[in-house]
């Protein structure tokens, strides 16, 4: 992916997320909302390394991942509006974006809960001799969960084609890394499972893209699972219910100086009119998504019980 495209993708995510925050304050979007502002370079760089039929597992902070993987802004926005036209019919909301056609497996809002799924997807690929890689995103907070450790061990034991991407934004809600991990060198934890693991500057999209390319190629080449720590920072609150008592404004400001979009812009020297055109194109895309969501129908309440079981299941029609 060329550098201009990386810029475009990061900007898309940024503007989409900013709009989500506005819509939240206008009570158009409800539930928990976790935005990716500040962290865009991570998913942008990693997704650039994937093939179309690779699989992605993400967390509840996944609007960006969904867009970057190719889901339309319309289907994501409509999902946040809880509309029938949303990717999950409005049943999942912000935290549960899925797209079967894109092998996008969500959207898991249990911290660490997606890792075993990623291991299993990679197992299926290996057993069926498919040339696919599964990428699993999670925050550093997940590394304190048992599911993280169980999954790392299993993936390495079975030499599965999975790339674990830790988005280390230094805080799990209000808990700083040093307050939750006795060992804060995260790649070392993965390395203790014999897994190739390294860190990358998660604010530098070119560095992320380069690291991810190397890791994905190694996984695809039969090198077994890999672990990548992307050092990043979230500029906004954890969710919309976070007074941010646990960190200094000065710290946030310091990190904002390393805004991944600004860093790339500084390298690329994009002419003002080109940037303005890009911003306008993105504004149109986002507003189109908002209009689409606004004008979409709700799911019929009569369908509440559908998809608890598969339509083809004999259970489906007979629940009381």
């Amino acid at each position, binding site marked *: 992916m060329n550098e201009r495209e990386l810029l475009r993708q990061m900007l898309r995510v940024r503007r989409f997320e900013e709009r989500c925050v506005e819509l939240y304050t206008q009570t158009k979007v409800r539930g928990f909302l976790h935005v990716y502002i500040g962290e865009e370079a991570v998913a942008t760089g990693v997704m650039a390394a994937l093939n179309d039929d690779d699989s992605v597992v993400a967390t509840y902070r996944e609007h960006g991942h969904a867009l970057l993987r190719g889901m339309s802004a319309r289907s994501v926005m409509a999902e946040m509006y809880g509309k029938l036209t949303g990717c999950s019919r409005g049943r999942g909301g912000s935290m549960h974006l*899925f797209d079967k056609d894109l092998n996008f497996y*969500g959207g898991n809002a249990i911290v660490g809960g997606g890792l075993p799924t990623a291991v299993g997807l990679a197992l*299926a690929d290996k057993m069926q001799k498919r040339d696919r890689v599964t990428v699993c995103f999670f925050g550093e907070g997940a590394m304190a969960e048992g*599911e993280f450790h169980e999954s790392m061990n*299993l993936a390495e034991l079975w030499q599965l084609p999975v790339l674990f991407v830790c988005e280390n934004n230094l805080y799990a809600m209000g808990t700083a890394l040093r307050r939750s991990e006795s060992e804060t060198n995260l790649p070392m934890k993965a390395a203790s499972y014999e897994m190739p693991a390294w860190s990358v500057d998660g604010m530098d999209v070119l560095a992320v893209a380069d690291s991810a390319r190397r890791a994905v190629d190694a996984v695809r080449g039969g090198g077994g699972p890999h672990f990548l720590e992307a050092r990043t920072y979230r500029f906004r609150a954890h969710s919309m219910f976070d007074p941010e008592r646990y960190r200094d404004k000065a710290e946030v400001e310091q990190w904002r100086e390393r805004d991944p979009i600004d860093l790339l812009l500084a390298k690329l020297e994009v002419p003002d009119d080109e940037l303005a055109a890009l911003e306008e194109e993105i504004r149109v895309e986002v507003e189109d998504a908002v209009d689409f969501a606004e004008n979409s129908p709700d799911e019929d309440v009569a369908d509440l019980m559908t998809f608890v079981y*598969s339509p083809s299941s004999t259970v489906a029609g007979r629940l009381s």
Partner: protein
Amino acid sequence: MTTISYREAVREGIRAALAQDDRVFIMGEDIGEYGGCYAVTMGLLEEFGPERVRDTPLSESAFVGAGIGAALGGMLPIVEIMTVNFSLLALDQIVNTAAALQHMSGGQFNVPLVIRMTTGAGRQLAAQHSHSFDGWYAHIPGIRVVAPATVTDARWMMPTALADPDPVLIFEHGGLYNASGDLEDIGPVDLDHAAVRREGGDVTLITYGGTLPTAMSAADTLAADGIEAEVIDLRTLRPLDDATFVDSVRRTHRAVVVDEGWRSGSISAEVSARIMEQAFYELDAPVGRVAGKEVPTPYARHMEQAAIPGVDDVVAGVRAAMRGE
């Protein structure tokens, strides 16, 4: 007809599935080289190799979750969890992902996963290896919960479970593995319907899994006194086939539910509530319940036996129902 053990019947169900469909594989703790902690999978490693008979580390959450992922990726995994107690370490994967994924993805992802586990008391294994959380799991929409009580069901529930597009949990009562019975060649079990194991017109005994033999013995004892019990094996705890037991109660006008699980919030409570909802005016006596005592299962044999439903308890429960109590 051949006579085999319940253990062999379960194994035969797994073996046949592995032989018939390349997408099927089994994984779990000590199922391969060790031969299975209850020897159910003995010999399968030798027959199908380590790719398809996969020993896992002690990581219930990861390998159950890996089963979910593998199912999403086109395989038909059978996951063995040693006992229901250890399945609690995988509850997140079972409840938050396997059961919820289809609905929360708006119908995009179904999870054709089979999870088998041993359940139940009676073998002096004390409070961390003896519980029956079958009813607990039956609380969860999005999964199917089944419990083979006979050798034939042990053999023939597996193909139905594997054909199911959604997660199926199979509960095998540990007290049944050594039981022998006639293996009938019935083909895949209809998991949508309960089975009438004994016909009778005086009272309906409703049970499943490990307490079916208890209920059948009680029915024999009662028959000697001229009380004919109809014995219904639920087979599937979710979704419940209430039509079969409600129809029976409409004929017998009395019902006693036998369930090894703790009484509060149990399957026996659910069955009883449904009878009340659907056949209240048909009843000549309150619905009786013979359930597990609400204690962590004790080790000492006499204490353990006192904690779980026995034949005498069932007989007493039926006699009370006959008196209208």
